[in-house]
C-alpha cells in the first residue's frame, strides 16, 4: 500500500474518533437534518427511507437520490453520511463525487454483490461497515473500513441483536488479549480474520478503529446500555423520527449517550418522551428477512 493510501486511511479513522460519545441520526429531509443538528447529533445519515419503512414496504433498497443528499448537506454543518449497497462500486463513486463525509456500506440496503464487499482503500472518502462479531469486523477493516458499527437488526426498535453483537465482539476482544501467541493464527483462521489485525487486537485490547452501536436503538436507556457494553457512540435509525416526539427523543438520546454512566441523568432525560417507535419481536421476522445476515 502506498504512503498516500495509509495517510488517507489514518485521517479517515481520525474523523470517526471525533464522533466518539456522539449520536448519528438517520434523516430523510433537510428539515429532519436540522432537527437532528439542533438536538446535538454529531452527524446525520441521509436516507430516502428509514430502515423500518424499508422493512415494511419491501422491494429493493438503493442509494438515496443525490438531490436529497445535497439538500441535507446544505442544511447542516455537521458531517453528512449516506449508505451504499454492499459491493456497489459505482454508488460509492457517486457518493464520493458528492463530497459525502462518510459512506455506510450497509446491509440495510439490498446487497448489489452476494460475494464481495467494496475494496474501501480505493476511495478517498471513509467507510463505516456493520459487523456481528470480531471476524466480520476485522474482515471489513481489512478491506479498508475506518469505522465499525454493530449490525443489530435495523428498523425493529428492538435492542436485543445490537446487544448480542456488541457483547460478542467485546467478549472476543477480551479473549484475544489473554491468548498465547501460538493460538492467534488458529483464531484468525477460524474467524476468517486477517492475522495482522488479530495481532493488533490481542496486543491493544480494542479494534484498530472506532466501534459504534447500531440497529434497534429506540430509547435513551438503549443508547446508554450500548455505551455501557463498550460502544464508543450511537447510530439511531428509525428510533427518532418514528417516535411520537422526535425533537424530545433526539435530545434525550444525545444526553443519555454523553451521560451513560450517570443513572440520575438517565432518569431525568427518560421522563415524558411520549411513545418510542413501535418495536418488532425478533421471532416475528423470518430468518431470510433479517438484515443482519447480509454481508460476507
Amino acid at each position, binding site marked *: 500500500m502506498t504512503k498516500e493510501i495509509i495517510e488517507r486511511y489514518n485521517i479517515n479513522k*481520525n*474523523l470517526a474518533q*471525533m464522533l466518539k460519545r456522539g449520536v448519528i441520526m438517520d434523516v430523510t429531509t433537510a428539515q429532519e437534518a436540522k432537527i437532528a443538528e439542533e438536538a*446535538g447529533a454529531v452527524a446525520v445519515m441521509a436516507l430516502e427511507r428509514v430502515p423500518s419503512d424499508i422493512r415494511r414496504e419491501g422491494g429493493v433498497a438503493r442509494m438515496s437520490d443525490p438531490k436529497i443528499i445535497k439538500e441535507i448537506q446544505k442544511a447542516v454543518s*455537521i458531517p453528512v453520511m449516506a449508505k451504499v449497497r454492499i459491493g456497489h462500486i459505482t454508488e460509492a463513486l457517486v457518493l464520493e463525487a458528492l463530497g459525502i463525509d462518510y459512506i455506510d456500506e450497509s446491509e440495510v440496503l439490498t446487497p448489489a454483490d452476494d460475494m464481495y464487499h467494496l475494496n474501501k482503500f480505493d476511495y478517498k472518502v471513509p467507510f463505516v461497515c456493520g459487523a456481528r462479531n470480531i471476524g466480520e469486523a476485522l474482515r471489513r477493516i481489512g478491506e479498508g473500513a475506518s469505522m465499525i458499527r454493530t449490525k443489530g437488526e435495523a428498523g425493529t426498535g428492538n435492542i436485543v441483536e445490537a446487544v448480542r453483537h456488541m457483547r460478542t465482539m467485546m467478549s472476543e476482544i477480551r479473549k484475544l488479549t489473554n491468548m498465547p501467541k501460538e493460538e492467534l493464527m488458529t483464531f484468525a483462521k477460524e474467524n476468517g480474520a486477517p492475522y495482522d489485525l488479530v495481532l493488533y487486537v490481542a496486543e491493544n485490547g480494542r479494534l484498530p478503529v472506532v466501534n459504534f452501536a447500531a440497529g434497534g436503538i429506540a430509547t435513551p436507556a438503549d443508547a446508554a446500555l450500548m455505551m455501557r457494553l463498550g460502544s464508543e457512540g450511537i447510530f439511531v435509525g428509525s428510533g427518532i423520527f418514528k417516535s411520537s416526539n422526535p425533537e424530545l427523543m433526539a435530545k434525550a438520546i444525545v*444526553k443519555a449517550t454523553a451521560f451513560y454512566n450517570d443513572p440520575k441523568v438517565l432518569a431525568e432525560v427518560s421522563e415524558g418522551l411520549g411513545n418510542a417507535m413501535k418495536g418488532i419481536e425478533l421471532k416475528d421476522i423470518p430468518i431470510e428477512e433479517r438484515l443482519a445476515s447480509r454481508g460476507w
Partner: protein
Amino acid sequence: MNKKLKIGVLSFQGSVEEHIKILNSFDDIEPIEVKTLKSLNESDGIILPGGESTTISKLLKIFNLEEPLKKRIENGMPVWGTCAGLILLAKNIEKESPHLGVMDIFVKRNAYGTQINSFVINSNIDEISKEKIPLVFIRAPWIERIEKDVKKLLKIDNHIVAARQKNMLATSFHPELTKNNEFHKYFINMVKESKGNINANILEVLEI
C-alpha cells in the same frame, strides 16, 4: 508538596481519551474528565477537545457548565481548544453565533471543505518546538482574523491555524491524534505558569 497538577478535559463528546492518554504520560499531571461543576472546579487548566462544536456547545448549556467555564477562563484559567474547542473559544464565527465567546478571533468553520479535504502536514512552530511536528486537520476551521491582543503561532497558506491570547491557546488541528506531545508540553507549561502566578499573588497579598 508533590501535588499533581490537575488538567481537565471537557468530556461530553469527541477526542477525550486521546487527550487523556497523552496527559497521563506526564508524571506530574493528573488528567480528569470534566462533565460537572465539581470536576471543573478541581481543574487547574482545561482542554476543549476535538469533536462536534454544536454538540459540545449544546451539552455545555444543557448541563449548566457554559457560564462557570466562561468565568473560569475569563479569570485566567489556562484553556486549550483543539478544532471544535477553537470554535467554542471564538468571539466571532462566520454564519453562527459564538459559544463561549472568550477569545478575540474570527473563525470560519469547515473552512477546508468536507472530509475529502482533510489532510496532514509537518510544520515548524517556533513557539512550540524546534523540530517539525505532524499537524492533523479534520474538517478543520481556520482563523480568518485576530485582534491585536492575540499572538499568531502558525499560518498555513495565508490562514492562521494556531494562536494564543494570554491564558487561551487555540489550534485548528489535533495534536491529540499524533504521537508528538510537544503541544501538550507547551500547554502544561501554561498551566504551571498560571499556578505559579497565583501562588506569587497570594504571597504578595500575605506580605502586605
